[in-house]
């Protein structure tokens, strides 16, 4: 993309009208602001919400199943209350924080595993490459939910197990892209030069190859956080994710399932929160992808397919 945009800048016409460039820049700032707004709102809510919002645990049976403001509710509970009279807004704020933490944690661990294995496989080739590729292919053939059901049935339900489920299906997205990139880069002159100077394999991988695949890793990371948050919610909704005593967005929707007749808001608003986060992280990923100086246009398309495969996380 970097080469392409440089090319655009030197086309005649563009070059002469300096104001046009400035207008482009200004539009860039606006689109960046629009892109980052949903994510900003969600992050602010998740980080600061628990201090602003009320009590997420306190029960108040006299005020159970109160409707939100605008549907006959009062400002004391802006989004209404659940079947035990707990404030829904406060619970969404608490749940958003936990979902965000899990999303970031799972995507980070997946990145560490996936990038390391991808670099190894792509740079070293040989049997390591064969093994990593085989594991990737096999994992792609098993849906996330199936992994979740097996782990929960054998090892039980807990936060570490949930993270394990999300990482087992999440690292593939990184490994595939990083491996391909490393394979293409490993014959580049600067790598040959590094090998000629006698640099050890580890240094070649982490100081020479890694900086070149980093922009793509960041893009996948953002897409993965979004995907992981949806999967966490789905698994928790099914009762095989977070333990029931934790407040999470998926868990709230699960509670809301019992109240489709008398409390639509309990499931409705947590879903909006999830969607806000997913849209936010996906827009950020698109924006980074558009900006990333190292990305060539041709890779964007295939990456989308590859990551939607694992978004396989979204894909399964």
């Amino acid at each position: 993309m970097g080469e392409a945009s440089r090319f655009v800048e030197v086309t005649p016409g563009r070059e002469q009208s300096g104001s046009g460039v400035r207008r482009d820049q200004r539009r860039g700032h606006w689109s960046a602001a629009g892109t980052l707004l949903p994510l900003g709102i969600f992050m602010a809510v998740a980080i600061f919400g628990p201090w602003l919002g009320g009590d997420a645990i306190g029960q108040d049976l006299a005020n159970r199943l109160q409707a939100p403001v605008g549907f006959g509710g009062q400002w004391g509970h802006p989004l209404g209350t659940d079947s035990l009279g707990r404030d829904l807004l406060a619970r969404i704020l608490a749940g958003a924080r936990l979902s965000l933490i899990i999303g970031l944690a799972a995507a980070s661990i997946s990145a560490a595993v996936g990038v390391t294995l991808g670099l190894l496989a792509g740079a070293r080739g040989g049997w390591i490459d064969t093994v990593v590729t085989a594991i990737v292919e096999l994992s792609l053939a098993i849906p996330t939910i199936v992994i979740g059901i097996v782990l929960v049935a054998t090892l039980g339900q807990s936060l570490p197990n949930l993270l394990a489920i999300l990482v087992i299906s999440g690292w593939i997205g990184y490994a595939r892209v990083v491996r391909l990139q490393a394979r293409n880069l490993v014959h580049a002159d600067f790598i040959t030069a590094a090998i000629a100077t006698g640099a050890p394999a580890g240094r070649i991988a982490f100081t020479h190859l890694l900086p070149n695949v980093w922009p793509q890793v960041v893009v996948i990371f953002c897409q993965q956080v979004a995907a992981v948050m949806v999967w966490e919610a789905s698994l928790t909704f099914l009762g095989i994710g977070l333990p029931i005593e934790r407040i999470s967005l998926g868990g709230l929707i699960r509670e809301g399932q019992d109240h489709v007749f008398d409390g639509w808001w309990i499931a409705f608003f947590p879903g909006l929160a999830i969607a806000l986060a997913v849209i936010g992280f996906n827009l950020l990923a698109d924006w980074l992808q558009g900006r990333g100086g190292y990305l060539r246009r041709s890779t964007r398309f295939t990456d989308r397919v590859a990551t939607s495969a694992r978004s396989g996380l979204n894909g399964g």
Partner: protein
Amino acid sequence: MIVSLVRRIAILTLTVFAASTAIFALVHLSGDPTDGFLAPGAAPAVRDAARERLGLDRPIAVQYGQFVARTFAGDFGDSWRNRQPAMDAVLDRLPATLRLAAAAIVISVVLGLTLGVMSAWLKAGTLRLGVRLLAMLGQAFPAFWLGLLGIMVFAVQLRWLPASGSDGWRSLILPAFSLAAYPGSLIARMTQTSLLDVATRPYITHAHAKGLGPAAIWLRHSLPNALLPTLGIVGVQAGFLVGGTIVVESVFAYPGLGRLALQAASERDLPVIQAFVVVAIVLVALVNIVVDVTATLIDSVPRGASLAAVNRG
């Protein structure tokens, strides 16, 4: 095509083998398997009898060998909950799940293609933007939330459709649509992008120069080439469809594979879990094989068609 078929089958075999190995390891690492179906205070004699009946008293290597062999034979023993063979329990539920998944595939492909093609063909900017927005929303909301929303609107408020169960096609509508939202959005977006991308290719300019009408160009050149990435998505989303079916079934109390597996997971009914895992893996592989074959067929169409056009011209 033969090569890709052989490759898929090899992957399928390896996956089943790896999955059964993983399950075997997990089961034996996670404590005494007999805990799963004996009462907590069962007498040692009862426990020993159960171990012998299940072959748990034999050496671990023998157990593993038998386990893998029986996995490939599709024989997982009886369910620990009811005395039915585990595979039969899974196969009983399979048709309902297949109906739901098939309906979702059809809806997502038809809707996604229609929206994608329309927005690329009619050069209206608002429509294009609208489809992009719709695709963004469709990808953002979890399927189970869309399902609940559908129940609240169409079953509780409007009373048009049943909220749960599986009597007839009417009870298939809500689950299928909530399942189709995500892949449908992806397909719409991908179709739009690849159609706009194809439109700039030299062979389209060439077709114009040759004097082909717009309809002929669309049918012979644009669509087949733009369809391939779309098909790729369906293949890549096969896992999502199987996984998503399980989630959506649970929302609608739809008696498919997913509800069986979730119940088995909560009861630690391992034979049923094993049967379910193998069936799910085979399903994903089958969808991918069908997609591969279809892609090869589509790929061979435009070449023949354009050759015919060249001969005529």
